[in-house]
């Protein structure tokens, strides 16, 4: 659905994309993650034909964003980070305008508007003015408007910004539903727990480039899977230092008092072997929790845990 190869877009200020690549299949829901200024919005704007790339390849459903921008727009539904609504229009008028803007003809037009009203949960108040809706309802209306023309790909740039927890849950459910209906989704967000819940894959980006999860701070040669272990000792955690020095596949994340948090390369088998080593060294372990890395851990690994 998306083919992006060595994409470059340089602004006068310097930020943009610098050789970024991405491939997204039609059945994927991909989360785009990176620090502020990483190039997420630039990428989404290029894919939605708002910005022309300087060089590289950017295709949506086989259509080039530069030479076939009209075809791309018909395929894509784009929801920007801070999307506005026409406050002085009624809900139905708002949807009718965008149905006409996407050249929907009857009877598809009316059906699409009714579907959008149902999808947004506003079917019982189509004559209300948009300005009377809360932020959460406006976001639902905007998503419904974005889906009016039946796009095969959704490009969502920080769609949960400013939403309350309930509205975020609703948005997540809607995106899951759309994904189940066969809509490919590329979503950029800083809310990692949301992405972890819904995405089939995460792509990291920084300074306009792809970022590998195995950062320099990770154990050498580390690749997924990686296990994160939280260990509590009866005695100070520093007593495990000699053992840690001998373990090449272990990286200390945190060590204070009796708590030790490490990441180790491998799966449950390696975690079990590490626990056995600790016990064999006569260390009294009172708590041992081993689990796969969550997105926050992976983000820390990719970006070094430092804010940018």
């Amino acid at each position: 659905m998306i083919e992006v190869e060595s994409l470059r877009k340089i602004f006068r200020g310097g930020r943009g994309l610098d050789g970024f690549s991405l491939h997204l299949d039609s059945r994927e829901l991909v989360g785009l993650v990176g620090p502020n200024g990483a190039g997420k919005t630039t990428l989404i704007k290029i894919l939605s034909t708002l910005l022309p790339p300087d060089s590289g390849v950017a295709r949506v459903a086989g259509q080039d964003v530069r030479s076939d921008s009209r075809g791309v727009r018909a395929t894509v539904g784009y929801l920007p980070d801070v999307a506005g609504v026409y406050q002085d229009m009624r809900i139905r008028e708002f949807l009718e305008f965008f149905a006409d803007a996407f050249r929907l003809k009857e009877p598809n037009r009316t059906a699409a508007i009714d579907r959008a009203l149902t999808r947004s949960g506003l079917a019982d108040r189509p004559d209300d003015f948009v300005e009377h809706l809360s932020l959460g309802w406006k976001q639902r209306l905007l998503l419904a408007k974005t889906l009016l023309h039946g796009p095969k790909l959704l490009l969502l740039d920080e769609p949960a910004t400013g939403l309350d927890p309930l509205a975020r849950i609703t948005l997540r459910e809607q995106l899951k539903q759309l994904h189940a209906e066969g809509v490919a989704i590329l979503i950029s967000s800083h809310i990692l727990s949301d992405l972890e819940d819904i995405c089939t894959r995460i792509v990291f980006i920084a300074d306009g480039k792809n970022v590998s999860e195995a950062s320099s701070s990770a154990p050498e040669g580390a690749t997924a899977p990686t296990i994160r272990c939280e260990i509590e000792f009866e005695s100070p955690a520093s007593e495990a230092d000699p053992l840690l020095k001998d373990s090449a596949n272990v990286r200390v994340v945190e060590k204070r008092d009796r708590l030790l948090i490490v990441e180790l390369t491998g799966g449950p088998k390696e975690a079990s072997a590490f626990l056995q080593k600790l016990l064999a060294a006569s260390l009294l372990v009172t708590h041992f929790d081993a689990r796969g890395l969550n997105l926050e851990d992976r983000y820390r690994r990719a970006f070094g845990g430092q804010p940018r």
Partner: protein
Amino acid sequence: MTRLITNPMIVKELLQRLRERRAWLLPTLYLLVVAGTASFAFYGATDLDMGGNRGEIQGADIGEVLFLTVIVTQMVVLLLMAPVFSAGSLTIEKEQRTFAGLLTSLLTAPQIWWGKFVAALLYLLLLLFSALPLLSLSLAFGGVDPVQLLKAVGSTILVLASICTVGLWCSSMFRRSVHSTAAAYGFVLVLSIVTAVAFGILISRWENHNPTVRFEGPPAYIQAPMFLNPFYPLLAILGGESFGQFSYPVSSYLLFTAIGCLAAALAMRRIQRSGDQI
């Protein structure tokens, strides 16, 4: 052609404009200003102290004064309003963060521009035509014929259309309405005042050098700065003793048309490349 008429942008723009509070307030104020000025002109023209002996006042003189006052007042007020309606129409989309929705729809840049242009111009035409009965009063007094009236209305529409395209161009260039409106007002001021000042300087020099040919009117190159003045075609239409020297209205029409076409082309080009302003 059908798409130009059934453009969804026009429907949306008109719907939004007519829902604004100023939709009814502005026509009311506009008519009050034009009617007030026309009344003042009428009583001025028929006043004994100002006009001399009442028996010497001709109906044609009253009609001419009334006509000139109303068309010039209309032009002044509409020139002040045109930037407000045109220069804010694209920037408001940027300020309200709705522009991305338009640019990523199947609407083309010319369609977006056309919708904004028609909506702005139609509202100005609503004002213009609402004062038409007042302007037509001058026909009853004589001194002005219907063709002159039609030409005056046509010239006003052409000038307003041209100003609207410039306003839209400013709106496409800036992110904030306040900046684009200021730029559009600057343009109107240059056209209205700078051209008149330039003409005043040129004609005074010309008259000093050509004292004997004064009544034949200045040549075209002396009048040239005034071709860009919004009031020039109106004064040229009226002609007569007072404004007989303004004799090239077609040059003015062509220049305003050229300005309009250029501004429209530049605005559409800018709309197409507005992704960086969102």
